């Protein structure tokens, strides 16, 4: 083969599936929807994502309760090398995010970032919880990569 020909041949199992630049594409989508259609439409989209693409998690949440959410978020924080503390007690799950891997990636790689990015968490969590009979809250400060997320069964008036 000519030395001017370069080949890269990869099988699916050669690499781990972890393309963090996708966080940037979602960030861009939020910015685009905000600017073109307004924030209510962005929320509508993110809630549609929650209902349509997290169906298995919704079913697990209905069946197993809050431990299903704890399991889900522990898995993704481990996968993306984030840092969060989890507390599940008295019917409430509290996730204290100390290092959001998505925001860290966006800021360190100097990708487009919108302070509205954390609405992903707010709206998608809300849609998942509503579909499963739970409620949630998310207190965050934009750009800091830290937040406190709380989840509880609907009607139990936690927070």
């Amino acid at each position, binding site marked *: 083969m000519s030395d001017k020909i370069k080949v890269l041949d990869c099988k699916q199992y050669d690499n781990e599936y972890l393309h963090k630049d996708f966080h940037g594409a979602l960030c861009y989508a939020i910015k685009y929807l905000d600017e073109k259609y307004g924030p209510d439409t962005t929320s509508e989209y993110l809630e549609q994502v929650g209902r349509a*693409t997290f169906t298995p998690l919704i079913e697990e949440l209905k069946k197993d309760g809050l431990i299903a959410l704890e399991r889900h978020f522990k898995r993704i924080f481990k996968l993306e090398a984030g840092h969060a503390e989890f507390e599940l007690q008295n019917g409430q799950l509290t996730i204290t995010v100390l290092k959001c891997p998505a925001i860290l990636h966006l800021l360190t790689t100097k990708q487009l970032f919108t302070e509205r990015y954390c609405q992903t968490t707010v709206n998608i969590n809300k849609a998942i919880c509503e579909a499963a009979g739970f409620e949630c809250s998310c207190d965050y400060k934009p750009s800091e990569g830290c937040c406190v997320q709380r989840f509880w069964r609907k009607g139990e008036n936690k927070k």
Partner: protein
Amino acid sequence: MISCTEFIPAYSELFKFLEQKGGKAAVISFWEHLSDAFLNNLRDLATKKGLAGCFEYWSHSLSEEAADFKMTLDEENNLFTIEMRKCPSKGRLMEAKHLKPYHAYCEHCDLLYRRVLEPLGFEYNIDLSNCDKAECKLVVRKKCK
């Protein structure tokens, strides 16, 4: 946040959502904006290094996406190709039983990258005839002056 591994279903859902709002034109408009604003990495690499820049860009992204592919850079013949044997995005959308992919999901690859590369003097062709099997073939040539 959602995990980057959960992005592709959200992306497909965005195309559906935009089509509900404003038809296919709204989806295409988003793709055009995304290409112009978000693909500067590919634009810069292809500008500086030509087809070798394309090789560099896709070897990074397709490896991180755990794609099954063969990528070839033939600088003697000014040719860059990707034979996608299993697209990680379309493949995952098809495998997940609870998801229904956007009907024209694969078309974004045609528009997004064509819009970056053609103005830089490349010919861009993508064969999407087997995209229902998560397969496609991309051919980029440097136009002779």
